[in-house]
């Protein structure tokens, strides 16, 4: 629905920064199974772009098509105006950081980084200089003579990154870059990786199934599901205005209601849902009609939870606290509404022991603002 439409004006001309990498109608089938449906994407120069989706959504296949390891069944891929179709991996100005890195086990860190440069037939001096630069960039100068198995996971990752950046590729591909790291190291390496990539100024496409990783690292995200791109946008666009139930439910958590449009006005809409006693009031118009079946989603952190009944007429519900998940920074209350709907509401623990006031079985009210939810028609 909201996937960005390409304007095919610069079909053969030199690509601008707006569409440095263009994926045009790319489709990939394996023995009748469609891994990637006709996909259009355009990626700007210098961007870190994430393909996000669950396993089997086609994100890795699409990445492998970019790297040249898979041949698209149809469609074209242009990088900096140059057609990539038909070029084998070793002739593409694209380098990839493989999942779990695929470092050459019989070579030292130095030799791993120098491998790509040697293939280009550079002089020994030039190779040595470039390797030193890369080692400095990823801060591994002291470990240059080590073999991969003598390095920690985080160090191996940096070697892999240095190796894929050494040739100064036009496009860097990252396949599940954090997949082999434990959780604590992950959040640290995410920012470090972004810093290194931004320093080198390379355009980057990454594949991940981890929404946090995509949101932390990427400037834009393409959300993929069963071979199709469902939404493209910046992390906050995708989070705050998802265009489909799939997008809303895939990223973060959401309270999702089924309902019918009751009043459809130019500047507001009301929705009646069997899950809620009070009507839903949306403070802006939508492109719909009265009686239309819609979904309404509101995220737990947009919801206010209190013991007193809020004064407003709409956007509220009463229920009993059934579960409390304490996360330290915030608590998530699971409130069971009379309709049986389980409503999630976050409570920020801004004061110490602040959430102690409410406990299991308490009658509470949940409420939200007129513009805090999204109406979804698909």
């Amino acid at each position: 629905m909201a996937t960005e439409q390409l304007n095919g004006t610069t079909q053969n001309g030199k690509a601008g920064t707006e569409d440095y990498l263009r994926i045009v109608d790319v489709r990939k089938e394996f023995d009748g199974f469609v891994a990637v449906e006709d996909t259009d994407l355009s990626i700007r120069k210098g961007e870190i772009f994430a393909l996000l989706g669950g396993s089997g959504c086609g994100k890795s296949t699409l990445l492998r098509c970019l790297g040249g390891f898979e041949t698209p069944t149809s469609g074209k891929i242009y990088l900096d105006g140059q057609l990539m179709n038909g070029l084998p991996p070793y002739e593409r100005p694209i380098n990839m950081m493989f999942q779990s890195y695929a470092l050459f086990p019989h070579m030292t860190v130095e030799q791993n980084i120098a491998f790509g440069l040697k293939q280009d037939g550079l002089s020994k001096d030039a190779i040595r200089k470039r390797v030193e630069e890369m080692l400095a960039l990823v801060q591994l100068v002291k470990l240059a003579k080590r073999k991969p198995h003598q390095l920690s996971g985080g160090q191996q990752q940096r070697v892999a990154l240095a190796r894929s950046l050494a040739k100064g590729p036009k496009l860097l591909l990252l396949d599940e870059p954090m997949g082999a790291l434990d959780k604590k190291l992950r959040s640290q390496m995410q920012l470090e990786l972004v810093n290194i990539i931004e320093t080198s100024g390379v355009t980057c496409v990454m594949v991940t199934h981890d929404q946090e990783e995509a949101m932390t690292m990427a400037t834009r995200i393409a959300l993929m599901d069963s071979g199709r791109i469902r939404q493209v946008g910046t992390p906050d666009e995708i989070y705050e205005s998802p265009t489909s139930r799939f997008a809303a439910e895939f990223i973060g958590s959401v309270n999702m209601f089924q309902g019918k449009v009751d009043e459809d006005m130019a500047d507001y809409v009301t929705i009646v849902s069997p899950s809620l006693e009070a009507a839903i009031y949306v403070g802006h118009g939508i492109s719909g009609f009265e009686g239309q079946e819609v979904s309404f989603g509101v995220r737990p952190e947009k919801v206010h939870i209190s013991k007193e009944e809020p004064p407003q007429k709409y956007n509220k519900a009463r229920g009993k606290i059934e579960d409390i998940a304490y996360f330290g920074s915030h608590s998530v209350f699971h409130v069971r509404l009379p309709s049986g709907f389980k409503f999630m509401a976050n409570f920020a623990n801004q004061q110490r022991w602040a959430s102690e006031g409410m406990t299991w079985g308490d009658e509470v009210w949940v409420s939200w603002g007129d513009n805090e939810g999204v109406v979804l028609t698909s």
Partner: protein
Amino acid sequence: MNAKLIGKMFPHPRWAVISVPYLWLLVFFAIPFLIVLKISFSRLAIAMPPYTPIMEYVDNAVSLKLNLTNYIGLFTDSQYVQAYLSSIKIAAISTLLALLIGYPMAYVIAKLPPSARNIAMMLVILPSWTSFLIRVYAWIGILKPNGLLNDVLLKLHLISEPLQISNTPTAAYIGIVYCYLPFMVLPLYTNLVKHDHRLLEAAYDLGAKPWKAFLTITLPLSRAGIIAGCMLVMIPAVGEFVIPELLGGPDTLMIGRVLWNEFFNNRDWPTASAVAIVMLLLLMIPILIFNRVQQSEIEGRLT
């Protein structure tokens, strides 16, 4: 009686397990080796058995006489030295040929889909299920002047008169390479099938053409398999007797045949034993190298 005491009376059960291979080595390797070693230090005698004892008890004294003439003879008589050199040469060339044929075979099999791999490996191993001797005889049938090979080549008009292959060193090479090929393919396959395909993809990605990627990634990573395969072919090939005897003709000089001649034709057990001991020592060198490489391979993987 308490349990501890019973435990002390009987050795720990783990000895029962460990002792089996050691007993095996003692009975079937160490003792025969010591007997051969003993005979190699004795003198030829017309007796039964045909050698003199090396230990004697005369005048209340035990005397041990280590007679070195057999060994000295080996190194002064050029026939033995030549036989050793020729054996090593034939074994080395055969090993190289087996590697050149076996590596592509193992490589292709390792690239097959898993179900086809097992069938292909089966086909490599299956001939070994028939008798070794029958397979060597079959080669006589193929290579002899009016054999299968010459028939086919003559019918195709590729040659005008039969090739003389049987009873030449060429036939011995063919026989050795054929018989030991599975021992080359097996360790290479075991090694190659474990290779991570993504390493090759990474090499392509970094600009290496397939041939270059093979030379820089696959080949060095299969070093252990190459060494294992070469050892498994080279070591038995050096002492090979049946193949040069049946296929090689009089020109194929190998130490196994010299040994056979000394033992059965000349009934010179001491010289035959000395020949065997020196051959063993010669083979120890590659075996030790093999062990060292394997050791470092294992250590490299553990750290």
